[in-house]
């Protein structure tokens, strides 16, 4: 998907506006971020794309002052690589690199990625617009630490809150309890001794502050329901 505005849209009243490209793997989000940015008359979105080649092409165009792009969730390396490719495409011309980061993602590892600003997806749309303008005007510090801070304090932890305190092994045992397995059966299934299985069960019950296996089993069922739609992985 590649949305380009017609050439004449760039002329006229908008010609003085800041020229920004948008790159996001999900076309809906790419188009959406472009629409959010376009709400500011001082910002002219030259295009929104989900193709990296198109994005590099837009950055290479003379006059492009900034690129807003979705930061890959799992890899800082990938982000650093993207930032380097955009900078190279700009060919030494100043380019504002603004990363849009998932609300739950740890941003500490992006500090040396070459980004000029990071905006998390938990912010209001005007924060994105202000950040873009700030970066282009050279007002931004190397990374917006205030935003990093807001991310660590505001974002609620992801799904399965209650069971997130458990170790992976305890979670396996909890799942088995939810399926109605006895301690002996759990031990056999996980290849551990009955005593170990019992210890896991006791520890997870005290961590979850439940006083019976039945209650733990009900919690395990809730946890499974939580992951029906919210999870990206494991399906």
């Amino acid at each position: 998907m590649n949305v380009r505005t017609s050439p004449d849209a760039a002329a006229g009243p908008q010609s003085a506006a800041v020229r920004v490209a948008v790159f996001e793997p999900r076309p809906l989000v790419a188009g959406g971020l472009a629409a959010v940015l376009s709400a500011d008359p001082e910002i002219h979105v030259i295009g929104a794309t989900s193709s990296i080649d198109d994005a590099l092409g837009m950055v290479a165009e003379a006059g492009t002052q900034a690129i807003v792009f979705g930061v890959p969730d799992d890899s800082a390396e990938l982000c650093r690589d993207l930032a380097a490719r955009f900078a190279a495409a700009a060919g030494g011309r100043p380019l504002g690199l603004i990363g849009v980061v998932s609300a739950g993602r740890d941003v500490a590892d992006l500090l040396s990625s070459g980004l000029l600003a990071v905006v998390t997806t938990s912010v209001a749309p005007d924060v994105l617009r202000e950040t873009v303008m700030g970066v282009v005007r050279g007002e931004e510090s190397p990374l917006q630490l205030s935003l990093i801070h807001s991310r660590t304090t505001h974002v609620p932890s992801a799904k399965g809150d209650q069971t997130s305190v458990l170790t992976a092994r305890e979670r396996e045992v909890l799942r088995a309890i939810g399926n109605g397995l006895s301690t002996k059966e759990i031990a056999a299934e996980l290849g551990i001794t009955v005593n170990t299985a019992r210890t896991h069960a006791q520890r997870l019950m005290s961590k979850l502050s439940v006083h019976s296996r039945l209650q733990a089993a009900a919690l395990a069922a809730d946890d499974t329901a939580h992951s029906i739609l919210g999870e990206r992985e494991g399906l």
Partner: protein
Amino acid sequence: MPHMSGPRIDAAVVCHSERLIAAAVAALLEERQVVRSTATTSSLTRLLSCLHRGVDVAVVFDGVDEDVSELFEAIRHGGLDTPVLLVSPVIDAGLVAQALEAGAAGMLPSSCSPELLCRSVIEARMGNAVVPTDIRAAVLEALRALRLRRHAARHRLSLLSGVDAHVLQALSDGLTVTEIARQMSLSPHTIRSHVRTLSDKLDVRGQLRIAAVGRSLIAAARCAE
């Protein structure tokens, strides 16, 4: 100034804890003149209040944190029949069938194009189901399987007496025999005898197993007709 022609759909867009994404999807719908006005929110609770205010369509982007059937139960309890379109990062026939069963208007992958989302919002507004064409046959098959499982589950639950069913529900919720006895003002012996009946009727041994079977039966039997 509101225009009298052109877009005519009031939509609410929600994206869990991702306000910017919700706003982006809403801005996209507005820009394409599909919707007249959008309310964006990052919480499902606020989505419900939007629905009460009378939006025409709701778009839930990138999955929901809570159990999807709970969302739709809340919608039904409020006497609402607003079409809700789910946009999910992972999508397969089973998930789409579950969502449709729960009462969703449909489901799209979050990798879909803006054009497809716009068209789907309009379809949902007209009361049509939205299912990606490439998995339509598989969704129908999954729906049929869900329905069969529901009939079977309802049949097995219908064989239980009222008190048996209550005890099964309580065990499934994680209550112990003592707690159930206290709750129902009966003696623990009576409850234990009901547990034995359940054990016979459901053909499983042990309270934990009964609870596990109970949960799956109750889940399968749920859903409005």
